[in-house]
């Protein structure tokens, strides 16, 4: 199977956040979602860079919303998962789960 068919970890996190947020998936919301769920604080440009990459692969689409005052008059950019993206996410998850199947690793309960 050619390289690039599986998603990277950060890409998965970003896409899952987008999927969870549904219609409200824009930059700051995605950052917050990731932070809330995982405790990880992502840099805004990294998130956009990942989304930009995913958009080129047609896994997500984006659209520009209306400007709002709390954003200093700037518009939001909303993201949405495409079917191909959902498929890729599922496949990545299956691959990882298949590899985890029946595996126990000593992690000293640190996770």
């Amino acid at each position, binding site marked *: 199977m050619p390289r690039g068919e599986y998603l990277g970890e950060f890409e998965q996190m970003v896409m899952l956040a987008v999927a969870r947020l549904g219609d409200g998936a824009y*930059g*700051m919301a995605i950052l917050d979602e990731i932070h809330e769920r995982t405790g990880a604080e992502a840099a*805004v*440009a990294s998130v*956009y860079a990942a989304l930009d990459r995913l958009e080129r692969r047609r896994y997500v689409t984006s659209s520009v919303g209306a*400007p709002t005052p709390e954003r200093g008059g700037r518009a*939001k950019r909303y993201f949405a998962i495409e079917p191909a993206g959902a498929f890729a996410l599922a496949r990545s998850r299956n691959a990882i789960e298949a590899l985890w199947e029946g595996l126990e690793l000593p992690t000293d309960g640190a996770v």
Partner: protein
Amino acid sequence: MNEDPLSPERAGPPRLPAWLLALSLPWQHREGQLGDLEEGFRRRRSADERAARRWYTRQVLRSMPAALRLRLRTTTDDQSRGRSMDSLTQDIRFAVRSLLKSPAFAVVSTVTLALAIGVNTSIFSIVNAIVFAELPMSDSETVALVRGVNPELGIDQGSVSPADFLDLGERQRSFESMTALTEAEWVLTGLDQPERISGLAVSAGIAETWRMPPVLGRSFAEGEDRWDAEKVVMLTHGFWQDRFGGRADVLGETLTLDGQEYTVIGVSPPQLEFASFSRAQVLTPLVIRRNEPNRAARYLFVSGRLAPGVTQAMAEEEVRRIGADLAAEYPEQNRGWGLWSAPVMESMINEDGRKILLLLQLTVGMVILIACANVANMLLARATARGREIAVRAALGAGRRRLVRQLLTESLMISLASAAIGLGIAVALNKTLIWISAGMEVAFIMAEMDGRVLGFTLAVSLVAPIVFGLVPALRASGLSASDALRDRGSTDGGRSGKRMRSVLVGAQVSLALALMVVASLLTRTVAYLDARPLGFDPTDLLTIHIDLPEAEYEDEGAVEQFFTLARERIGAVAGFGPTALVSALPGAEFGALRSLEIEGYEQAPDRAAPTVLMSTVTSGYFGVVGLELQRGRDFGPTDDASSFPVAVVSRRVADQYWPGDAAVGRRFRVAGAEEWYEVIGVVSDVRSGTDTETPAENVYVAHAQDTRSEMYVVSRVTTELALVAGQIREAVWSVDVNQPVGQIRTLERAQYETIASNYAVLTLCITFAAFALIMASVGIYGVMAYAVSQRRNEIGLRMALGAEAAAVRWMIVSQGAKILGGGIMVGLLAAFGLSRLVASLVAGISPTDPLTFVGVPLVLGTVALAANLIPARRATRMDPAATLRAD
């Protein structure tokens, strides 16, 4: 807390980070991301403003890599209009395809540039070797060279005597250390074969003064330069590599130099091998006797390391003062002599040579510009022809930038291909020059294709496309340069441009003609020199150079004995005929020039004394070489030191001074000498080594009566040189095991080596001339092709109205011929001027040789007209209807 949302400190996120991020992000991403961050900032600000600011700044800093990645990605997109395919690869593919579609253009322009780049690279590699040569001293700005000067004798780069060096060393305060060295030669024995090696005798301070740490072992210590110290030697890096394979355990071994044992203590670093030092193989301590009385023997190369805080100017003043003191104290030997110091950089690198080389480089650099102009002309013609293709591409949405980029990529392809070929040409040219010059010590031997040379070629090939490709590309893509010109008020840009192109091409024709004339004159001269009758056959005549060290052969009897034995043993080698000795190789070396006083010869008062080439030979020499004994006898065993001095003269000498075949029995003596020689024979002439038509005036004297320690053994051989070289050496060593054997070569080779420099100059000259011819032809082709492309409509109209193809062709050809004719006229004038300059180099023909001055313009005219014919034929082959429809 002030809740006013418009108050400055509450108005928004920190400015500097915001600005930084905005700067890093591509514009498409600015709005979304800055908006997100501001939203996050505002939300956090309501809790803790400082934390919010920290958060914002951290976000920006952590975003930087991703932001730059985004920018990079988006920039490439812009150019390929959103396609992810690498647009450069696409451009290159397209360029190659479009060049393959017009192979004639691709080949001609590539060859043009390749020649220009090749010649430039070759010259640059020479310039590089000389101009950027590194001095053997580290931190050379604090090293000064001390030289002996004598304004009366016009010496400003003289050496220093040992006694003066010692006194200077004691009196001066400007230098923290000083060193002196001199070139020396030894006979090395005990290591394979005895051989003469050269090296430097250096005083102990050299490592300190030059800051030249040895690569192995140590340098000379204080006291090792005393005459009674234990003998030690350093090897130069090259000698160590060549002879000892770079072995580290060479330290402690002994070398036998001039019969004395020296212990190897170290290896000098490679940077010592600079200019004339590069011949050095070993270094020994320089022994200076304390009370050396002779200050007139000046042979030391003296340098010093400036003490901290002392400037070159201060040192110079002190050195001058000490020099003046020494002249006053020792007037009998130092009168008129002074000492002088200067920064080593200025003194060791030949400024004039540097300037000449840079000038040469500049001149040759102009050639690249001419080549670029030629290619630009062709590109312009091509752009007109491709107008439709480009219009279609523009209509399909190719932006102007994209089109220019595409056209420039094509230019770059041409130029890179040219650089690759040009590099090959440069390597071949350098190799040819080295091969032709037969090991002469000349600059191009040092020329190497190092990183700097490759960088130069690459830089040229990257800049050239901009020079020759930008204007055609701009014009082709619609942003016309002529529009720009018109805006500035010039209504005649096209015509003056055309005139400029014509003048440029005319100048190329003139230059080509002048160069071709010089090349032709030199070729005919060399051909003439080669064709002169030699007087004998040099092909299988082997010569062996033997130079006996005078220290060991002070006595003439010993020399005579050595050569007699050596001749016998060499003659016994299989394949050797009879052997003889000669002091100067005929046709290759001059021999000693002597003025004669001839008994009974009435010398015209206003004429110089008869001057002949005198060489020393043994009996049998004439037979070995093949000179015919026309009168009298050869030298015999009775002609020795105890008998009356005798001589054999060449036919020309006999005819000149003793007309009527009356030479034998007559007498002459060397002007100013006591002794008379009696002529005992007359032999046939040999060719003069110089460029004159007349044979040399040779006088031969007997080795037994004029014993010399440096002679050539000559013999006709019937075997291969490679097979007998070892046996020849064995034969010599069987006489004296410590005697080095010099060059062994055929006389043919020796003769070639003396004239090799002629061939090197000739090769350069022919290369330049051929190159100029190609340039001029390509130039005419380019300018005419462009003219034809500009006049397509007019030509189409004429053809449609029934003009004969031949008439149209003639119209085009005559236009090119006008440029050509003008160029040839100017070129002929220039060539006449040049021929006077090179007259001294020309022999056997007149400097205004009619064959040259008629033949060269004919050749040039024919080639250039042929180049002119291509666009002319193209003009008449155009479909009139198509050309008229095109616009």
